[in-house]
């Protein structure tokens, strides 16, 4: 099972579903839709948070939150 925090810089993945239900709604609202492409653009100093491109949007996510995004 691959999760978004395991992406390497420049790597892409397709969102399948979410682990944590409470967080999942927040993620959905922000555009993390199952089936969307997610790409890790870069990480901040000290490796967290992550700079992600989800669909057309740019979002920052902490590693402990990205763990909940399961990729296909």
């Amino acid at each position, binding site marked *: 099972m691959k999760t978004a925090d395991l992406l390497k810089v420049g790597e892409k993945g397709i969102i399948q579903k979410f682990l944590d239900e409470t967080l999942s709604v927040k993620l959905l609202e922000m*555009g993390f*839709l199952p089936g969307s492409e997610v790409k890790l653009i*870069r*990480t*901040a*100093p000290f490796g967290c948070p992550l*700079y992600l491109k989800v669909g057309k949007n*740019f979002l*920052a996510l*902490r590693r402990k939150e990205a763990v909940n995004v399961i990729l296909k």
Partner: protein
Amino acid sequence: MKEVLSRQGLVKVALIGNPNSGKTSVFNRLTGLNQKVGNFPGVTVDKKTGSFNLDNNTQAKLIDLPGAYSLYPTSIDERIVLDILTNKEDPLYPDVIVYVADATNLERHLLLLSQVQDLGIPVILALNMADLASKGGYKIDSAAITKKLGISVVETNGRSGGGVSEIKKEILNKFNHKVIPSGGFKFDNGSTKVLGEIKGKLKVENDYQAILYAHHYQNLGHLNSDEKAVIEDIIAKNNFSRIKAQVDETMARFDKIVPLVEKVVVNNSNAETSFTEKLDKILTHKVFGSIIFISILMVVFQAIFAWSSYPMDLIDEAFASLTELTKSLLPEGVITSLITDGIIAGLGGVLIFIPQITILFLLVALLEEVGYMSRAVFLSDSIMRKFGLNGRSIVSLISGVACAVPAIMATRSIGDWRERLITIMVTPLMSCSARIPVFTVLVGFAVPQEYYFGIFNLQGLVVMGLYIAGATAAILSAYVMKQILKTREISYLVMELPTYKMPHWKNVGITVFEKVKTFVFEAGKIILIISIFLWFLASYGPSDRMEQVEKQVATEATTNNWDETKIEDEIASRKIEVSYAGYLGKAIEPIIEPLGFDWKMGIALITSFAAREVFVGTMATIYSVGSSGDDEQSVVQRMATEVNPETGELVYDQATSFSLLVFYLFAMQCMSTLAIVKRETKSWKWPTIQLVYMTGLAYISSLVVFNIFS
């Protein structure tokens, strides 16, 4: 007939939309400067209201609701929107909603719109096209949106002001015809049953409102405990799983939105890497991004520290001349003294902050407008989070080195209440510019003027050490507070990194204007009152000894042949000794003695409450060197020779001077800061805690320092 009646009066209009939707620009375009900033009851979230005319008979009262992503709140801002929209009795409950969506980001922005539409309030969609121009080949078919969503669409441009008159026309139209959108959402069987029962038991007519009650009843302020109990029963009886229902609802909404957006948006742009992506390669780069971030902080610091000093000096001089003028025009007496030393001094103490507030908010609003602020949060999140702070806290902490007042006002943009509160509580520990005069006077007594390796000045190193100590104390206090202040809420980041935009100068201007206005009228009141109180303490005494002072000095003057200045200084010096402030100074002497302070320093500690730099002026008065030339130089000379009458040793020895330095570094001695903390936290609780913890920290640190050096 009905038509005629409803045309009279007031339409309540609410602006709703996601953060970064261009809502503020639309608000500013609709209301101009005809707006008021307040707080939502119980919380410190800006409540912006304004009004404008729709036609000769009808006026619109507009409220700018905080930015929200959905009606399932994860922040205070979103909770306010939910609270108002689910309560028909709320004075802010709108007749018409203007929903602002960014045309370049429709998918996400349509989620909240579809929820709002289900609430049965007339809605107009204001499609913000301002940033569309920058995207070549990007087109939107508004007519198709109207058809698919059954909603009036107005294309607006916050930048040019386009679409404003159309919005007004539509508001009037919606208000006159009461077009209630039909809630199109199909709930599953479980939810339908729950909402049906809630509608049966409570006074709720709308399906979606009922289901929102089922989700949020615990946090809705307008439901009473009986109603909450009823809803709780219904939920338990039906085994209603709130999280699952919420996920299902959101997914179902997106299932409709995504194909809709695909149809109405024509995107012919091939640009794979946008301008924002290119810029972020540098601005959020681990090394370059961090360097740029630190440089920006340095510019902010430099701006409020150095640039504001010219207008501040002007204000200072203007008030000094105003005081002189008033003294020369009015007859000598209590009233004149109250006006000059109480009221004018107090007003000057308020207005002196305007340059710093203006400059800081000019820069902060600019960084916010162009979209840089979220990059600052991105870069610093991992460090700041460890100390219970937020990336935006850095801006406040750095600004605090110039002045805590604008720095604390700048914490408003920190979304998380706990992070914001901690930032407010620790910012005054950063060594502000008002401490500099105190440092310059005292550091000379604490350490000799020596050079190491020819370049390192020992006094300079000590002052630098004080700044570092202040910053360290701020960070450590934040860490301690993080452990104490626990919240139920889990801290999310999940933050949008909006595309970079040219700033709207009008928005920046209005923000600065509002901040200055708020400070002058709200914190200003408190500062003025405390200033008058301090004047009273220093000008009056418990007995008639104040009057005797003048006679005493007059007789001594003739025997000792004193000149005018000497007489004035002697009177001032002896008067402050027998004033309430003098008595207070003596009263606290036993408490401050372990720190190496005498009652004269006690008086200075009390008067410094007006502002720390008052220390120098008070010392000048006490040592009766007040009016002779350059305050600072003469005070330093006088203090350097001050000898303890009992021990015969110098009063300002190394131990006492260091102790005083540390005390001024940590103690909360600034009424203006306390006034602004009161205003920003909406209670006296936090400024009181701040006063106690900072002064406690100062006391203990000074005690330690004094004992090490003596």
